[in-house]
């Protein structure tokens, strides 16, 4: 079968680079995006490359400022989810007693079918406008699936021949757990992390879009999309530019994750 393959990994990296670069470095190059400085809805070109939004803020400045919260909250949430969920999963998998495993993992299972955006809206009643609270809520809804994934992968590794060989050699329990089991969990985690970050970006974006997250005048990408959506035809860049950033980030991330996944699968098949 002949197949023309786009080099997914380089394309993915290229797509990721722009939004990540804007998020990391943007604020240093941007002017202050204060409301009321310029006329509202100025066209693109001229002094404002992408025009101004309804509050008279330069769209390009907004764009450069808005990446930190849009991507930072999501990345932070995923990091916390992996720290907590990973610890719970590894602990549950290495528990010597079955009841300890159950005690750790069952309560999370019970909470698994909760709608995520609903959890965020309940949290938002009291902590609206607080990026930390929203990020923690996003992290919390991601803990159960992460814990389960890590536990399954660790159990898989712990029952394999390598662990048995290590045990026969008389290696200590902690050494086996940390050196072998924790390391063999890394590959399923790498496979999962791309989709998890994408979902977190969507979730944070949705919360901000709905007005459950940051302040409605924040320069955040999703907040900008929500603010300027009434003027979609009048000033399309105010919506399209941040939307393009979000889409580039998720498409790039998915492409990269898929190619990494394909590579690990190929090595696994080669080993077999």
């Amino acid at each position, binding site marked *: 079968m002949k197949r023309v393959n786009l080099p997914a990994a380089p394309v993915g990296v290229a797509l990721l680079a722009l939004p990540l670069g804007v998020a990391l470095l943007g604020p240093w190059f941007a002017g202050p995006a204060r409301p009321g400085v310029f006329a509202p809805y100025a066209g693109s070109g001229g002094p404002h490359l992408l025009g101004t939004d309804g509050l008279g803020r330069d769209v390009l400045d907004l764009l450069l400022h808005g990446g930190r919260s849009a991507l930072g909250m999501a990345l932070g949430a995923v990091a916390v989810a992996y720290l907590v969920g990973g610890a719970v999963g590894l602990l549950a998998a290495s528990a010597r007693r079955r009841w300890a495993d159950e005690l750790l993992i069952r309560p999370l299972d019970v909470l698994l079918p909760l*709608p995520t955006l609903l959890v965020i809206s309940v949290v938002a009643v009291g902590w609206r406008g607080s990026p930390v609270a929203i990020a923690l809520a996003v992290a919390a809804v991601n803990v159960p699936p992460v814990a389960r994934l890590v536990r399954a992968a660790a159990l898989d590794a712990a029952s394999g021949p390598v662990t048995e060989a290590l045990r026969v050699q008389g290696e200590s329990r902690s050494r086996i757990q940390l050196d072998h089991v924790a390391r063999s969990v890394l590959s399923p985690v790498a496979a999962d992390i791309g989709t998890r970050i994408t979902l977190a970006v969507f979730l944070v974006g949705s919360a901000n879009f709905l007005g459950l997250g940051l302040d409605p005048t924040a320069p955040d990408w999703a907040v900008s999309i929500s603010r300027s959506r009434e003027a979609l035809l009048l000033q399309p860049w105010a919506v399209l530019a941040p939307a393009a950033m979000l889409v580039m980030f998720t498409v790039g991330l998915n492409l990269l994750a898929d190619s990494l996944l394909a590579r690990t699968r190929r090595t696994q098949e080669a080993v077999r």
Partner: protein
Amino acid sequence: MRGYALQRLALGAVQLALLTVLVFLLTSLLPGDAADVRNNEDATPEQVAALREQLRLDRPALERFTDWAQGVLTGDLGTSLVSGGPVLDILAESAGITLVLAAVTLVVVVPLAVLLGIVSGLREGGRLDRSVTSVTLALNAVPDFVLALLLVAGLSLQLGWLPATWVGVGAADLLGQPALLVLPVGVVAARMICLLSRQVRAGMVTVLKAEYVTQARRLGVPRRTLLLRHVLPNAAVPGIQELARVGDNLVGGVLIVEAVFAIPGVATALVRAVEARDVPTVQGLALVVAAAALLFSLAADLVCHRLVPRTEVLR
């Protein structure tokens, strides 16, 4: 079968009980309570205190919880702080539209996702499979709210084919104007179809490679019988398991879509209540929506068990 169903029902009941506690905990731990909010800046501390007493917010949390839980059990979700009417009224006004939206979405999603999954899974790596896979991957990377806005800009504002908002539309007009439903349902369905069809496709690919399928082929079982009787029930399992989980996407999508199209449904009422910090309304609506999601995953699990019996309730 009966044992599994009973266990699964028990689990559902436990989930629901935990859920009520969780909703209450999250909303009662709030920094600043409803009395603060309702009075804004120009109320004197005495007025706030009086209101707090009137709303009975000064009692211990446990007492408030038992009161609220008792109310919920008897079908009383409390009183809205904003409208002063029962939360149940708000729910009754908005639930119909949301239910129609969710039901129509599911009716569109399930057959379409199964069909796409089957045709692309039948020829793994074929031209159709590759194009379906790339389209679903690309669609999957576009957030709901961006997709909704792009569709509104293109199809409603530029071309004028479909209505852009539901402003001024009542529940009664809904069935008379199916055009209203096209865009909202399309947006919610898009991501669900992507997720589901991928699972069905993966199930098809695995099952088609199974030895019993090869054997059945060798025995001369007709292709159609083989596909419908032997392949599909097993191939559908990952899809239905996924269906139990896309309830999340359904709720999330409905929240977004109701906001974009100004649909006066439950999600709009919920977001509005969050903005006004109308705690009893948020509690009531969140509980009902979450209970619906639990029910949905319960139903999917039971269907899944009917197709391929498992003994464990929790995977």
